[in-house]
């Protein structure tokens, strides 16, 4: 277990470093950070000053080295927009994102599993058809659009929730539900599909033959097997919500998290702050991956940690 964890941790560090290198290459080599940051009327002199200030006049490999060494010490540079360490801004804006993502994720997984299990009880029945339709809608409707439609109906039309911003729990409801929708869809479809597989599996048939009650068979025997497939997808969903869904949903609802911050930073050409957001999200993504892998191994006795990968 210890050896495995060490191996996974070193892989995780490798992932974060490759993300940093990609961002570095894109911003320094393909793009022109100074041109993006400076106003159009800037002179050559302004340009040279900013380049020196950012250390962009040094050889590219020296820059990359400094960049990674600094990043390891959590020094990601000063935000050009707010003139203070970018990492501080990201860490300040992180809690709202965590609240939103956790709320959306938990809601999505719970609803998804319930819908998936219920619809698998009678494949092809009307409940099943309704559930599958709902699931397909969940994965097909664009989140930013559903978010705006919810504002039109629930905030403006019915006046139940505030249109955007943050504060009490009433501000969290709409964004969390919107973030949860595709998760509900995919989790429901996957849970349903693997539940149907499990119900036809030999060990479940044996349990039926032994006279185990139907409730117990569905909730214990079948769900345990199906849970492993669901867990894998759930890990992906959490990552997707953090690195994708949150950006869209936070922007629609002006939710003050890191996704909204990233968009504000992009609007203000603050590449340093955008990099800091990507860095922190990359660390969270690899952490989630490790947690999923370990949970997976604990649930499925067939997976041996030391031999995995």
């Amino acid at each position, binding site marked *: 277990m210890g050896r495995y964890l060490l191996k996974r941790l070193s892989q995780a560090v490798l992932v974060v470093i490759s993300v940093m290198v990609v961002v570095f290459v894109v911003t320094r080599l393909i793009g022109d950070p100074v041109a993006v940051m400076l106003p159009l009327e800037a002179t050559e002199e302004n340009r040279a000053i900013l380049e020196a200030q950012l250390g962009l006049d040094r050889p590219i490999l020296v820059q990359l080295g400094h960049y990674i060494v600094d990043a390891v010490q959590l020094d990601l540079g000063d935000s050009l927009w707010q003139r203070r360490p970018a990492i501080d801004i990201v860490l300040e804006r992180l809690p709202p994102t965590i609240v939103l993502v956790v709320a959306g994720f938990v809601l999505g997984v719970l609803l998804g599993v319930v819908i998936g299990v219920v619809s698998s009880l009678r494949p092809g029945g009307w409940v099943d058809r309704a559930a599958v339709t709902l699931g397909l809608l969940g994965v097909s409707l664009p989140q*930013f659009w559903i978010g705006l439609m919810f504002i039109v109906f629930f905030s403006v039309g019915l006046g139940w929730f505030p249109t955007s911003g943050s504060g009490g729990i009433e501000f969290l409801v709409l964004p969390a539900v919107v973030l949860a929708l595709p998760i509900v869809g995919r989790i429901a479809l996957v849970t349903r599909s693997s539940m149907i597989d499990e119900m036809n599996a030999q060990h479940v048939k044996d349990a039926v033959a032994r006279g185990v009650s139907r409730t117990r068979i569905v909730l214990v025997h079948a769900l345990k097997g199906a849970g492993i497939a669901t867990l894998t997808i759930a890990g992906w969903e959490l990552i997707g919500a953090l690195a994708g869904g949150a950006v869209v949903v936070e922007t629609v609802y002006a939710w003050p998290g890191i996704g909204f911050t990233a968009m504000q930073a992009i609007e203000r050409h603050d590449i340093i702050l955008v990099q800091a957001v*990507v860095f922190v999200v990359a660390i969270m993504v690899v952490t989630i991956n490790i947690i999923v892998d370990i949970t997976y191994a604990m649930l499925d006795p067939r997976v041996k940690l030391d031999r995995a990968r």
Partner: protein
Amino acid sequence: MSSARPTGNRDRSRRAAGWAIRILRDPAALFGILVLLLLVAAALFASTIAPLDPNKQDLGARLLPPFYAEGGSSEHVLGTDQLGRDVFSRIIHGTRISLTIPLVSVTLAGIFGTAVGLLSGYSGGRADTVIMRIVDTLFSFPGLLLALTILAVVGPSFWTLAIVLSLRIWMVFARLTRGLVLSAREAEYVEAAELVGASPTRIMMRHIAPNLTAPLLTLAVLESAHVILSEAALSFLGLGIQPPQTSWGLDVAIGRQYVFSAPWLIIFPGIAIAVAVLGINLLASWLRVAADPEESAKRFAAAADAPTGWSE
């Protein structure tokens, strides 16, 4: 799985008829096919179908409501935007972007990913390990956020968007192809071909490749739905398609400022995205069932349980 051997014309047309009947019998698949045909027709004949030029401004006819609302007219069935442009015509023209972006991205990603998967699966050993480790690493990248960063720095355009989106999905094709190659290599007929001394190229093209077609096509359809959603989300965030080109996501972004006074500006482009993605998802889920007899028992099986680690 399609068979490797070329079949006679009669056989082929009979098989095609068989597939057509199967589609007609499945309402979900039929809906999917119809949506796709409609989209293709709209994209091809946009200028003929659309009543007006999507970029023609008419400041005297700003923010007109759709036909069903008070003040609406049949001249602008779905109303007009803040510059007096016809919403319906813009949606029809938006089909072009919504179809060409996935076509380009999925083709690029499919070709590259399949090539990498073939190489990895067929060569095996060290090369396979290294390639798959790289693929794993890329799967752990923070998808949409990284795409946003790249687009912000490089500058959004049709091609940067198409390439960035294909960079996010080629790994899915690589993984699937590798898995299929590995299982095909186990097959007796491949071992037999190796024994009689067939060249690797021949084995690959003649014996392994035919097994890949159906699953890869299904994946391509499924990924197209993902790409449409991503394009719409990126365009909505202002980092995708740029004016004067039209895109459904871009139109929702424009309408956002008028969400309270002119909700039709976001309602209709959004419905267009939803219908397109739903249709393609339904088609993908049917294709999967149709191509795999084992799946037929689970008729409405999951359309989207092949996650790419991102959602919009």
